[in-house]
């Protein structure tokens, strides 16, 4: 049988042609790269209203009439930065929420230094988050606030809401891992054999660059090769370059993770899967998900390779709330926040969900006039109303 003819000459000829096209593109690309690029991220204006150690609380001034009275606190993960939620105009979760009339606060975890290495999950949850929640409650004179957690921030939010249900009106978890004993995520497989004690004892805080490298290794073909091939092909497109640079700015902006928090998160969650079993101990107290009694909206991505759906979907069945909802979007881990298409559905859905679960207006105090003061007292007894679905449960 004659050997198959692969037209190597034609392929090479096309390659030469493409090289020539590439050379022309390079000329235009040089103009783009050397010119002015609008690649700033986190451009929505905010005020820093609270600071504690390295942690800051951002408050975004409203851009539309407030429709949701209860403030929303967004809690991002310790990995990467919360600037992803405000990546660029048109793809900003923060801006979308503001446009929906939500009063938005966001925690900026800052950049941990060596002195933060002994901070545990308890310090973050019952320390920083609790102090910030109290600050927002007192500032806005509300008994409870809404919380939205992202990824590891969602895990912290779940722990917080379980230990302080009286302070949380509604809870939204997005791409939040709560069940870690799965085989569908590479992170879950790799973390099982990780010697985390040696890692933390060696580094103190886990370096952000090490984490970056680990995330790149999850899919080196796409993240280390194809992504940059795509960039070189589109280098002459200014808009593409700006979007690309913004994403690069965010994705490689990785703070270190406090060592003891990392140790506890890997050992107790990834390796022992204690959270979903109600066996996790934080601050000396067991985290009981059944005490999470407020409405819960659980959003996750079907194609999420970092936090697979199997890691997220068991939460709603484990909590004590009767008002829970799962939403599985056809996107990946960060697609929920950066995809303009997804955001068109995401923000309105959340605003609508929160709007239906607003706290009841506080009862007005009855004024006693001079005339009634002298009249004989009459006592009216009203029949007791059934408890509202989002009322706080009995204290722990």
């Amino acid at each position, binding site marked *: 049988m004659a050997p198959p003819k*692969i037209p190597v000459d*034609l*392929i090479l*000829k096309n390659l030469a042609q493409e090289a020539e096209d590439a050379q022309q593109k390079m000329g235009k690309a040089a103009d783009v790269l050397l010119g002015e690029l609008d690649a700033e991220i986190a451009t929505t204006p905010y005020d820093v209203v609270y600071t504690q150690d390295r942690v800051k609380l951002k408050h975004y001034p409203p851009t539309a009439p407030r429709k949701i009275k209860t403030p929303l606190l967004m809690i991002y993960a310790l990995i990467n930065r919360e600037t992803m939620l405000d990546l660029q105009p048109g793809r900003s979760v923060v801006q979308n929420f503001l446009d929906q009339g939500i009063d938005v606060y966001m925690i900026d975890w800052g950049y941990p230094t*060596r002195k933060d290495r002994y901070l545990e999950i308890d310090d973050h949850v019952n320390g920083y988050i609790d102090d910030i929640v109290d600050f927002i409650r007192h500032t806005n004179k509300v008994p409870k606030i809404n919380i939205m957690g992202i990824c590891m921030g969602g895990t912290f939010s779940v722990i917080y809401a379980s230990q302080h249900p009286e302070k949380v009106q509604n809870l939204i978890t997005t791409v939040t891992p709560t069940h870690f004993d799965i085989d569908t995520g590479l992170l879950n497989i790799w973390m099982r*054999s990780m010697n985390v004690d040696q890692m933390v*004892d060696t580094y103190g805080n886990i370096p952000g660059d090490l984490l970056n490298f680990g995330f790149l290794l999850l899919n080196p073909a*796409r993240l280390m090769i194809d992504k940059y091939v795509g960039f070189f092909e589109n280098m002459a497109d200014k808009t593409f370059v700006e979007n690309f640079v913004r994403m690069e700015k965010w994705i490689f902006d990785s703070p270190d993770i406090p060592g003891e928090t990392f140790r506890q998160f890997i050992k107790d969650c990834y390796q022992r899967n204690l959270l979903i079993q109600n066996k996790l101990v934080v601050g000396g107290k067991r985290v009981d998900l059944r005490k999470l009694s407020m409405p819960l909206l659980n959003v996750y991505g079907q194609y999420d390779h970092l936090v697979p759906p199997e890691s997220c979907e068991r939460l709603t069945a484990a909590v004590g709330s009767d008002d829970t909802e799962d939403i599985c979007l056809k996107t990946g881990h960060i697609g929920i926040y950066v995809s303009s298409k997804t955001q068109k559905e995401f923000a309105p859905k959340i605003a609508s969900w929160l709007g239906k679960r607003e706290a009841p207006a506080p009862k007005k105090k009855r004024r006693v006039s001079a005339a009634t003061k002298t009249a004989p007292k009459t006592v009216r007894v009203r029949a007791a109303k059934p408890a509202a679905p989002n009322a706080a449960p009995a204290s722990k």
Partner: protein
Amino acid sequence: MPENRGTETVNEAPHIDWTKMAAQFWGPLAPAWPGLFNPFGDQEKGPSGGRMDDALRSSAALWQALFGSSTAPAALDNFMKAAQVAPDIAFGVGQTCLQTFAAFQQQVQAWIGKRAAAGAAMDTQDLDKAFIREWTETYQNELSRYLKIPQIGLTRFHQERALAVADAFNVLQVRMAEFSHMLYLPMEKSFNALQAQMVEMAKAGPVDEKPKTYYNLWIKLLEAQYMTLFQQPEYSAVMGRTLEAVHEFSAARQALIDDLLKMAAIPTQKELDELYKEIHQLKKRMRAYEKKT
């Protein structure tokens, strides 16, 4: 006993002639050097010229005593006997050295023989993997022990730390080679798979001329190969060993740096960490008290 060699009388102790010659040479020079003590002159007279003078006096006294005793018949006899035995001793020492060297050579040849045998036994299909395994075992079993020889002396701890860094570094190189090789395997397999697919495509009909088509095909194959590799327990094991080697090297290096910092009276990382821990615990207690009140 003196021998007569013709008209010349030669002392049987050759060093005596040499000694006399030296004395005859240096003796007259000493008075020519003003202020210098003359060891061969009258030692009773003249003041001491300081520490150098004292040292010269004691050296001269020793020299005279040795010279005097070596000319005694009994000493001469012993010296001649020693001179006769010296060649035998030298020969014995030389023989021992040669035997030791030969034994060392034998050991090296045996070691090379073992490596050659292991190399011959390597599976040619997996030659690179076998080579890395052989390299790892060779280092751990043969070479590493030289770096673990117990050190002696006042600076033994510092020496041991330096050797620990060298050992950890070598282990790291081995592990990194192993990990890099593992990450390279999907590249190789994807190229092979691409070639096979291109052949199938050519058999099926006219092939696409655009290089982009083949690039897209290759990247998909590469992605699939990596996904397969990453889920294997062997990969997790290699990654774990590599990380362990990185951490051990970091720890060994830090121990050496801490040594140097201590010498320079600069606080070490460990000391600062202890301070941070105390501050953290104090802050925590304060927060708890504030919340209570």
